[in-house]
């Protein structure tokens, strides 16, 4: 061992000079972490007592129990409403986002200024959280699931617009050229050259978003925009912990079921090989 150590001394140095930047970054991150934890109150002594209470809460959550049959039915209805909000928001967003996506795609819209404006507005829409959209729509159409569906629609127009425009830009140019060469106009080129090619990709993206929107739809109820979130927030605030865990369990089962259905549909749509681009 000593002979090896003598022959390759550079491999036995604990800290080679090439590792210094790495160590500096790690130290800086650690210092920032400790500073952050200090600012956010991790060292105020609340952490340990909180952990104790958390264990207690987890114990009280078991076993999941809706309390009464009427509760269970109300939760079931709210869950259906949640899925409806997600479905409606996703589909209407997809329909509305298609023209915007075309406007933002380089190979469809030649005017740079139109493209720029379309992209910027999509970026702005996307940066505002779905809960904030829900609060804004509540001001417009009042409390209830309708506001939730509109919130999901608004925030998804931003995401779909971007994804769709990217999918359209990645489309093959040749079908469009073929159509143009037979005398077809710009619109014909889009309709018969681009859309048939990108449609399966768009559908698979929409299905993927439907899954994730079901999750979002479970929380917009917390601000009053319909769905199961209202019941969930209420159960937590009134410390009905067994009902809380029952609702969470129902959400998990529903999300898993929708995952399953939509991934089956996706595979049927685009075949097992084709993934979602972007």
């Amino acid at each position, binding site marked *: 061992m000593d002979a090896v150590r003598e022959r390759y001394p550079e491999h036995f140095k604990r800290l080679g000079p090439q590792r210094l930047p790495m160590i500096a970054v790690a130290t800086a991150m650690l210092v920032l972490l400790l500073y952050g934890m200090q600012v956010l109150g991790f060292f105020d002594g609340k952490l340990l007592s909180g952990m104790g209470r958390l264990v207690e809460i987890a114990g009280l959550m078991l076993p999941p129990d809706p309390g009464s049959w009427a509760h269970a039915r109300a939760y079931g209805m709210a869950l259906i409403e949640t899925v409806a909000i997600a479905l409606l928001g996703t589909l209407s967003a997809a329909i509305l986002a298609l023209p915007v996506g075309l406007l933002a795609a380089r190979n469809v819209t030649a005017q740079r200024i139109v493209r720029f404006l379309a992209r910027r507005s999509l970026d702005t829409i996307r940066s505002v959280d779905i809960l904030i959209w829900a609060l804004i729509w509540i001001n417009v159409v009042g409390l209830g699931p*309708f506001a939730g569906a509109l919130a999901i629609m608004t925030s998804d127009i931003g995401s779909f617009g971007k994804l769709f425009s990217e999918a359209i830009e990645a489309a093959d140019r040749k079908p469009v050229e073929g159509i143009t060469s037979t005398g077809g106009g710009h619109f014909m080129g889009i309709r018969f050259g681009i859309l048939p090619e990108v449609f399966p990709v768009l559908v698979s993206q929409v299905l993927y978003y439907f899954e994730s929107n079901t999750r979002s739809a479970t929380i917009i109820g917390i601000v009053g925009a319909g769905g199961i979130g209202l019941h969930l927030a209420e159960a937590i605030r009134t410390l009905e912990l067994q009902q809380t865990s029952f609702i969470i369990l129902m959400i998990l089962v529903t999300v898993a079921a929708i995952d399953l259905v939509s991934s089956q549909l996706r595979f049927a749509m685009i075949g097992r090989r084709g993934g979602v681009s972007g």
Partner: protein
Amino acid sequence: MAAYDASVRSRRWHTLLMVACVAAAMLLASISAEVSPVKFLENIHRFPSYIIRLFYLENGQPVWTDIGEWFWGLNRWLRLLWETLLMAYVGTLLGAVAASCLAFLGAANVAPARWIRLVVRRFCELCRTVPELVFALLFVIAFGLGPMAGVLAVAIHTLGALGKLFAEVVENIDMKPVEGVSSTGAAWHVAMRFGALPQVLSNFASYALLRFEINVRGAAVMGFVGAGGIGQDLIEAIRKFYYSDVSAILVMILITVAIIDSLTSLLRHRLIGLEGKN
């Protein structure tokens, strides 16, 4: 020609059937989500007027006529934004560190035992399916109002999301270095440290940075349920109709998110470059 017509006709039927199914689903969903076109049309004018109203001060002047009045709470909001960023940072780092430990236990190729892998997978799935805000609501009960509950909610959700992604990264490594280290009689954790970790570290960092972007947005709304950050002031401003405050806070959040996004994408491209060089 007849065969062509028949084929076109059958495809048209197919398309029509799908459109009908989607339309039926939307109709059912809109009944469940209490969609009312009348209410929508009657109130839709409030949406643009609400957005426009956000950019007027209490005295009826547009916000840009008096920037000082618009951003009257600048110091407080900057402090809260800093708190939000720290929440995202601490949450991401804690979650990512935990996830990188769990990833090796949950990856099919290196997991020490099958049952450990299954338990880890289920745990990660639970952590990422339950929405962040639900964790935040629960943690607010245990730890009291304040940023700590938000940080822990962000950390748990990050653990779930990154645990899955990291495990997939580990499953794609080259097994030869791991076998080499194991063949010298090294224990499992040593084999992981010297055989697997160097291969996955840059990918881990890249995913963690992406997650940090998402978590900044997530941390910005944690305040909606009392879990710290700028969200507390935002929801108060929305609920109490302090219009110009809403726009001021939203503008600050949007700018911060844009800065963070460009910084992290810069860093990620450097990381990907590093990986290419190795």
